[in-house]
């Protein structure tokens, strides 16, 4: 019984990986993709698994491209280590095709509209971050220059951080700090401030997916 239970657990884990792989490779239909994402949203830690699959995919494509494809060069040490292990091990199974996850009702998400505003780690870090050089009337004319000069560091001016307006919210990713004022401003920036050439290819899609402005 114990062995069967373990096998079933392994099979369930493989089912998720199998479906993620298909989703990532663009091999799911529109309906399958929608069902998978809705099921994934209920699975704690699925983001990390997605990251892992994407990294593996990049490594595989880079290896397939070889010398002719410098496009995606994964970390050499990582790839070599993986390939060395593969020399010693060979796949010993071929998983059966597995059924799709059933569509599940979406519970109300505790983190809907919550932006993970993260306070800069320390006052010292803050000082380094806002240390910029700005010379009155002395900003370099960028026209004709090869590289616009990076600002030189000066003493910081904004360091104090008061966390009283931050609200802790429990999310699947842990305790996050929520600032409703900043969230509203960020939504306004996404909706009206995204005046860039990237707004139409992708910026608008991003806003429509992550927009938390409406309350």
């Amino acid at each position, binding site marked *: 019984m114990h062995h069967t239970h373990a096998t079933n657990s392994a099979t369930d884990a493989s089912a998720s990986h199998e479906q993620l792989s298909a989703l990532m490779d663009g091999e799911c239909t529109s309906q399958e*993709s929608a069902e998978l994402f809705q099921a994934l949203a209920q699975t704690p830690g699925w983001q990390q698994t997605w990251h892992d699959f994407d990294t593996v995919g990049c490594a595989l494509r880079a290896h397939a491209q070889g010398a002719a494809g410098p496009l995606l060069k*994964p970390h050499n040490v990582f790839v070599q280590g993986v390939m060395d292990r593969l020399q010693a091990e060979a796949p010993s199974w071929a998983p059966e095709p597995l059924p799709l996850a059933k569509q599940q009702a979406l519970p109300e998400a505790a983190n809907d509209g919550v932006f993970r505003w*993260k306070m800069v780690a320390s006052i010292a870090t803050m000082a380094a971050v806002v240390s910029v050089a700005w010379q009155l009337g002395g900003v370099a004319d960028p026209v004709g220059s090869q590289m616009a000069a990076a600002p030189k560091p000066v003493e910081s*001016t*904004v360091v104090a951080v008061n966390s009283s307006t931050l609200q802790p919210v429990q999310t699947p990713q842990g305790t996050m700090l929520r600032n409703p004022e900043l969230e509203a401003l*960020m939504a306004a920036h996404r909706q*009206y401030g995204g005046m860039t050439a990237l*707004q139409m*290819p992708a910026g608008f899609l991003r806003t429509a997916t992550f927009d938390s402005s409406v309350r």
Partner: protein
Amino acid sequence: MWQSRAFKQLLLGLYVGLAASTVWAQLPAYPVKDGQPLVLAEWMERLHEAARNRSYTGTFMVQSGSDMAASKIWHVCDGRQQFERIETLTGSPRITLRRNDEVMTFLPERQMVLKERRDALRIFPDFLRTPSQKIETYYQAWRLGRDRVAGVDAEVVDVVPKDGLRHGYRIWSETTTGLVVKLQTRAASGQVLEQVAFTELQLNAPVKTDALARQMSNTKGMRVVQPQITPTQAESHGWRLRADVPGFQAMSTQVRSYGEGQSTLQWIFSDGLASVSLFLQSFDANRHRQEGALADGVMQSMSKRVGDHWVTAMGEVPPETLGLFMQSIQRTR
């Protein structure tokens, strides 16, 4: 063999075992200069033209910092008008319908529709053609090669910033149409700060413009909310920048009014690929208690008190850039 499911699962298992310290940034050292340079403004125009006279449907996901979300999209353009429907697959239900720059956001759970016009959706690509806009001054674009995304072949271009005041971008565009299928915002270190990518895509899908238009007009039973937004000039409200932030042009200013007489002035800047908003408000001790910097994925924000006002700079730029804006903003009266 490399692409088989079994092989990938084995590889994933080995990866988990090997790479305790492996992080998201397993992509190549940045910038990658193995490709050929190209004219960025022309390339961006091609990306904008890709959606014209095309229809497609697909599923895409957005990764921002540690957050991920997915949506389904239907898009059609008949050469004159663009229609889009975007429906969230994760998080709270939301349907966004767009006709050119007119946007309606349906919130079924709240029986509410938000109706807006988004200027940002119609200023490009004309903006790239204006003499004052020299996007190549601050960014260099390189062709990297080919890749495959959501089952389609894509050409990959790296957009590398020439200074430390802006991030870089890696853009995957479908080889035949130029449709952007994947877009990464990348720090100078190569770290991916944000990614939007299709996971599934059907080009030339039979999407009907009249069907989407009907959906936009169907607000029966829903409360329609239209924000009060007025175009204006920052200078007329007593604000100026002592010096320009390199590469960033003032694009527009608007006043957004709330209830109880409150309003926020939003002064928008762009370098062509990144944008910064300066939010200028009257100081309110009950609301404005936190000076400092915060970050969420690619978005940085910085706030401080300036006399009787509260200034917040926000944008998808390095914090040093916001620092320059904050040091430059000043009252004229």
